[in-house]
């Protein structure tokens, strides 16, 4: 039996279950405890678990994330909230040097089972500094793992996998998905864990593969419906879910099936997850491609504020449909 939960509720349920499972799991971040979370992800958890397990921090991202990394080396399992993933910029050294390298530099003697989570997306009218899309950037650092769940079921399953993983895992959520609802397996039916590194076909199709992650998956699904209904194009939608480890097999499988690829990525055009996926596809499925791999990315400028036009800077169903039609 599954229930309908919002993305936010499913994520909270995952956190709650892990708090119950392991006394070393501790949630930390700005406003996560008494305020119930800036986006209410942690609502009720401080009340339930108390001061030790759910901790409010000052606005000192480098300090408290580094603190979590240090504690994790002693076996604590900190789950740190960045109110926005965009605030990685003030904690970057801790995120990409200390978390990513401590195992390596110690020859495997130290390790860092930390989770850093929070929303990483554009589209909420908060402008250039608050709308970074950093999953490709962090995935580029060996030592780190990155995932970007698109559905309530996946966010619950992936946060649980992330917390149990013994390496640093950065979970990129999306404020525009928090309220979205979907089916989530009932805890009574067993532990719902979605392993890192496993992509998911969210829609079967035969004419073209649309590969995406995060909210772009939702856009891709909507576009696929339009393509089907209005243009008789049957698109397959592959949700990467996890960026590193990356499910290359699933990527190549869908490419070999449809021979055409559109990548949808909320990153800007230079780089991003999609540039990497593009390279891998042409490298490993060169002979299966009937046409160049195309992308829909965020228009290449800092994030504009204006609510009148912001959604046009981002990938959206219309832009996806147009790009697919342009590939015909």
């Amino acid at each position, binding site marked *: 039996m599954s229930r309908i939960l919002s993305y936010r509720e499913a994520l909270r349920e995952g956190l709650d279950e892990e708090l119950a499972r392991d006394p070393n799991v501790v949630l930390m971040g700005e406003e996560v405890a008494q305020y119930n979370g800036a986006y209410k992800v942690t609502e009720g958890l401080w009340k339930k678990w108390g001061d030790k397990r759910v901790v409010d921090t000052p606005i000192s991202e480098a300090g408290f994330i580094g603190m979590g990394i240090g504690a994790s080396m002693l076996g604590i399992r900190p789950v740190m909230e960045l109110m926005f993933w965009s605030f990685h910029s003030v904690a970057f050294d801790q995120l990409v040097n200390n978390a990513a390298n401590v195992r390596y530099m110690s020859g495997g003697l130290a390790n860092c089972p930390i989770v850093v989570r929070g929303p990483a997306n554009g589209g909420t009218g908060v402008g250039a500094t608050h709308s970074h899309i950093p999953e490709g950037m962090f995935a580029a650092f060996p030592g780190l793992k990155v995932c970007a769940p698109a559905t309530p079921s996946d966010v619950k399953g992936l946060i649980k996998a992330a917390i149990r993983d013994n390496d640093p895992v950065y979970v990129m959520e999306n404020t525009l998905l928090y309220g979205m609802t979907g089916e989530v397996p009932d805890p009574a039916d067993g532990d719902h864990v979605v392993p890192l590194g496993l992509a998911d076909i969210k829609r079967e199709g035969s004419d073209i593969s649309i590969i995406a992650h995060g909210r772009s998956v939702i856009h891709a699904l909507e576009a696929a419906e339009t393509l089907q209904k209005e243009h008789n194009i049957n698109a397959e939608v592959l949700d990467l879910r996890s960026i590193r480890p990356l499910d290359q097999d699933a990527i190549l499988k869908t490419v070999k099936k449809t021979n055409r690829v559109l990548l949808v990525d909320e990153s800007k055009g230079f780089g991003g997850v999609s540039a990497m996926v593009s390279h891998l596809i042409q490298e490993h499925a060169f002979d299966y491609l009937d046409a160049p791999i195309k992308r829909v990315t965020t228009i290449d*400028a800092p994030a504009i504020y*204006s609510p009148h036009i*912001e959604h046009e*800077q981002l990938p959206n169903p219309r832009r996806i449909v147009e790009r697919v039609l342009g590939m015909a």
Partner: protein
Amino acid sequence: MSSATTSTLDFARSPINQSLTPERKIELFTQMVRIRRFEQAALKYYQAGRMGGFLHLYIGQEAVAVGTISLAGKDDHFITAYRDHGHALAVGMGMNECMAEMYGKQTGCSKGKGGSMHFFAPDKNYWGGHGIVGGQTPLGLGLAYGLKYLEKEGCCLCYLGDGAVNQGAFHESLNLAALFEIPVIFVIENNGYSMGTSQKRSSAYRDCLARRAEAYDMEWDVINGSDIYEVRAKTQIAMERAKKQSKPTLLEIDTYRYYGHSVADANAKKYRTPEEIENYKKNHDPISVFRMKLIAEGVFTEEDAAAINKTASEEAAAAVKFSEESPAPTIADISTDVYWETDNQTEASKIGRHFFND
């Protein structure tokens, strides 16, 4: 002066306030009222869904921006965080371009690209409006560094919140300011809370936040932010120090915000008691306090004050109308203002691919 002077002094009598003409006093009062009316209009239309993103209201803190900026000469510069409307109007920006910015219109001060958190007017020495907590503090230091480099007799007032004092970049800026003798004044607008977190829950300190300046052998002071006279009197000392001695100061101005952290802050009344809010409104409201003083001084009457209020409300309403009627940016507008060189179509901008769109 390295310790908080007690507030029993009558700052109206300090020379910098004695020198104010009645007209200028009314001007300062008017500025404070305009900020409040402007923001109340913004609140109304934000709640009506006419704007996006966040709306961080300055209401309750008006004497800080107006009092400090009223002291500025032509080479004094300003920079603040995302709670930036008060400073914008105080430096002389128009309600129209500010309101339109929040509406995300082409006529906004930042062409609708920055939004509420990113008001700019370099022609009025106002350098934003910055969203990353503490991130503007090195920039403020740099503006003052630039003034010194250019041998101007000016300073930079760099505002930040009580929560922002725990960002590393601020600490680095304090050390650099003291070490290099930079004419910067860091102004902590201490409204008691960073979002839902009280000062006590976010900062360890001795007596007050400004005393952290001693760590850098820097001068500091604490100011009652509900009295614009006190704000002016004490800030002026710091500005003199900056301009004459090229020395930085850390000021802490105690103030209060009436609304939540942002309008989206549903908890605004949970982490603070209603009594606390009411007490401030009743006894410390900077506009009421100043109004009373000006009436007592015989500068104006209750009726004059009401008229100022009315005019400000009308001005705000007109700004709303202006904004409603202004055109929105187009898709093409997304791609301008990224590079100076491409905007100005220079030779350099024609070499190589600058933009990576599909």
